């Protein structure tokens, strides 16, 4: 298995494969015209351009099938790749798709001339951004980190949380908080919610 999100039951994996890809219909697709909301035609006719989620495009465009042809989504095209190469640290990856790396990796499954450049760009982007993610997750304990985390893609957020968790656990240990046996997190949250519900009802 290549990545965690490829796991059949993985929520992020399902959401990442929902990201849209610009497609052009190559062979007529009869009686499914309603998939193109901009047209009243009963069928999807060759030449029609529409955006389809990755999972759908993948079923129609592969080595065996060319029912549609695809274009790379703009955030992976040369223009954006140049911006990322120039300075990836300032880019809002959350906005470019909350699953920038995962979706980007999925796109490499298509037979497309740009895939090699995209693959290189993904690596470079992560290499450039890792220091900021690490430092902010390690230094900004108790500070407001939302300005940083709001610009992270889902995978980076995961890394950020891992970094911050490592730090907070260590700090809890340093202050001997870990010696205290505590109520399980779920029970605590459940109590709190119940209290709020009782107070507001």
């Amino acid at each position, binding site marked *: 298995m*290549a990545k965690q999100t490829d796991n059949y039951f993985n929520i992020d994996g399902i959401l990442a494969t929902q990201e849209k890809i610009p497609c052009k219909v190559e062979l007529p697709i009869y009686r499914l015209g309603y998939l193109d909301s901009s047209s009243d035609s009963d069928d999807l006719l060759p030449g029609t351009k529409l955006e389809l989620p990755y999972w759908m495009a993948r079923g129609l465009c592969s080595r065996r099938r060319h029912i549609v042809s695809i274009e790379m989504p703009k955030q992976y095209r040369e223009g954006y790749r140049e911006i990322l190469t120039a300075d990836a640290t300032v880019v809002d990856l959350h906005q470019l798709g909350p699953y920038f790396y995962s979706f980007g990796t999925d796109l490499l499954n298509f037979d497309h001339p740009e895939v090699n450049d995209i*693959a290189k760009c*993904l690596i470079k982007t992560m290499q450039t951004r890792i220091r900021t993610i690490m430092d902010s997750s390690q230094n900004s304990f108790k500070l407001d980190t939302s300005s940083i985390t709001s610009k992270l893609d889902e995978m980076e957020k995961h890394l950020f949380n891992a970094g911050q968790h490592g730090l907070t656990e260590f700090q809890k240990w340093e202050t001997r908080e870990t010696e205290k046996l505590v109520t399980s997190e779920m029970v605590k949250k459940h109590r709190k919610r119940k209290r709020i519900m009782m107070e507001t009802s």
Partner: protein
Amino acid sequence: MMDPAEVEFLAEKELVTIVPNFAQDKIFLIGGDIGPLNPGLPVQIPLWMAVNLKQRHKCRVVPPDWMDVEKLEDKKQEETDSKFFTPMPSKYYMEVTQILLKCATADIPRADDVRTLIKDIWDLRIAKLRSSIDTFIKSDATHAKLNHLTLMEINTVRSFLTLSLDQMHILRTNLTGGIKPTQD
């Protein structure tokens, strides 16, 4: 993945020297024999047991050799001067300090200075660790040697570092063109 309390649990197996104020025949523990204990005679026992005896006022703790202000000052200097991680006198230096300073402060000369020095050394090493992580990930290297890093140090960055490298590996595999089975 690993709770610092678990790292401490491992550190509690370290032997420390105590001077008991009571007599006790050999104790046959599952993990090995302890003692005998004689009043006034130094003896080595596991840290977890030393803490228990100390709490019951049954012993005095002899600080480990390295828990000494002058030695720690030298160590701090060495760590500052070196680009690499220097070997620590105990692989559980942080945990042992933390535990002994809590339960046996009076037995440790200049306890406050010891605490500060250990913390300084820790901070120096963690700063080094962070910049080496950055260099490592940027370098395209696929593995690294980490001699002299202690378990507690590793543990503070464990998830972050392993998850980052896992991700880098996936991205690198993309590049070398492994065709994956589709799953949509």
